[in-house]
């Protein structure tokens, strides 16, 4: 299995993703520069966190025009797996590969903290190694993470089982108090219509070792391995 990790100017979680995939998972990974025109035979594309192009205009707005994103979009359209974390989620929304948008946190603060998210579906490429309703401890680090979409889009996402992660408290309740950024319906991660593109604000690649506070992110990558290798 080969992972391609995209580096935009301003990406800063590409090394974390590389570490998780190679040192923890033992898989092959390559960096894909934003000006590249091919995916170097990557089976899975990772759009990492950071501040691509300085987040000028809006987070993710400029990144979608980069040469590599044309390849990523083509890969996604043919069913190829794409994981967008944090800024990667913002880029996927701006590129129209996922619906909705990520806007300024409701409390206006940049939040860097471990949070709990509840696994809403285990039917996906990305979550088949989790239990439904399981609570994961995964860090967030963002200023623009409030997921927003019109009500009809939110209803459609829920109806199609495409809300994959929600912010929850220690008992698993998706209360307002457990919602760090004011996201609609506590949404922390969604998948595309065909389930091959996942966007999430929390950072699973930073939760791959007990030394770092949690290894709950490992099974997300193992889920991909299980499904794509099979």
């Amino acid at each position, binding site marked *: 299995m080969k992972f391609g990790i995209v580096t935009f100017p301003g990406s800063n979680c590409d090394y974390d993703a590389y570490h998780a995939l190679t040192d923890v998972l033992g898989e092959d990974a390559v960096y894909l520069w934003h000006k590249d025109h091919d995916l170097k035979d990557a089976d899975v594309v990772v759009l990492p966190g950071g501040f691509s192009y300085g987040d000028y205009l809006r987070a993710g*707005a400029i990144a979608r025009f980069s040469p590599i994103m044309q390849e990523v979009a083509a890969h996604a359209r043919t069913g190829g797996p794409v994981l967008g974390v944090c800024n990667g989620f913002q880029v996927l*929304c*701006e590129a129209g590969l996922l619906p909705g948008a990520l806007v*300024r946190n409701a*409390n206006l603060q940049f939040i860097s903290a471990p949070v709990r998210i509840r696994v809403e579906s285990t039917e996906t490429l990305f979550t088949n190694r989790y239990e439904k309703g399981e609570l994961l401890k995964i860090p967030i680090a963002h200023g623009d993470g409030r997921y*927003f979409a019109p009500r009809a889009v939110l209803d459609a996402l829920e109806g199609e089982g495409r809300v994959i992660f929600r912010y929850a408290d220690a008992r698993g309740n998706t209360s307002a108090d457990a919602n760090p950024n*004011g996201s609609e319906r506590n949404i922390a991660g969604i998948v595309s219509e065909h389930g091959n593109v996942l966007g999430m604000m929390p950072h699973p690649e930073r939760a791959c070792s007990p030394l770092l506070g949690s290894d709950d992110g490992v099974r997300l990558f193992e889920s991909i391995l299980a499904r794509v290798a099979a």
Partner: protein
Amino acid sequence: MPKYRIAVHIVPRKGLLDPQGKAVADALQTLGFDGVAGVHVGRYMTIETSADDALAAGENVREMCRRLLANPVTEDFEVESAVPA
């Protein structure tokens, strides 16, 4: 082709929670501006572009707003009349 300058206002969609606007409104009220009923914080841009005429320049900029300058999910835009640059 003549050159035009066009101002664009990008504002959060009405009804969408605007925490920045609310923070500013609260601060204004604290200063004693009791009449303040609402504040919305957006972006202001000026675009210089050449076009056949002022009308075409405006339509050009509206298309820029739809495709890049504004996020169609969360923002509205207003394009002012083109002035010769």
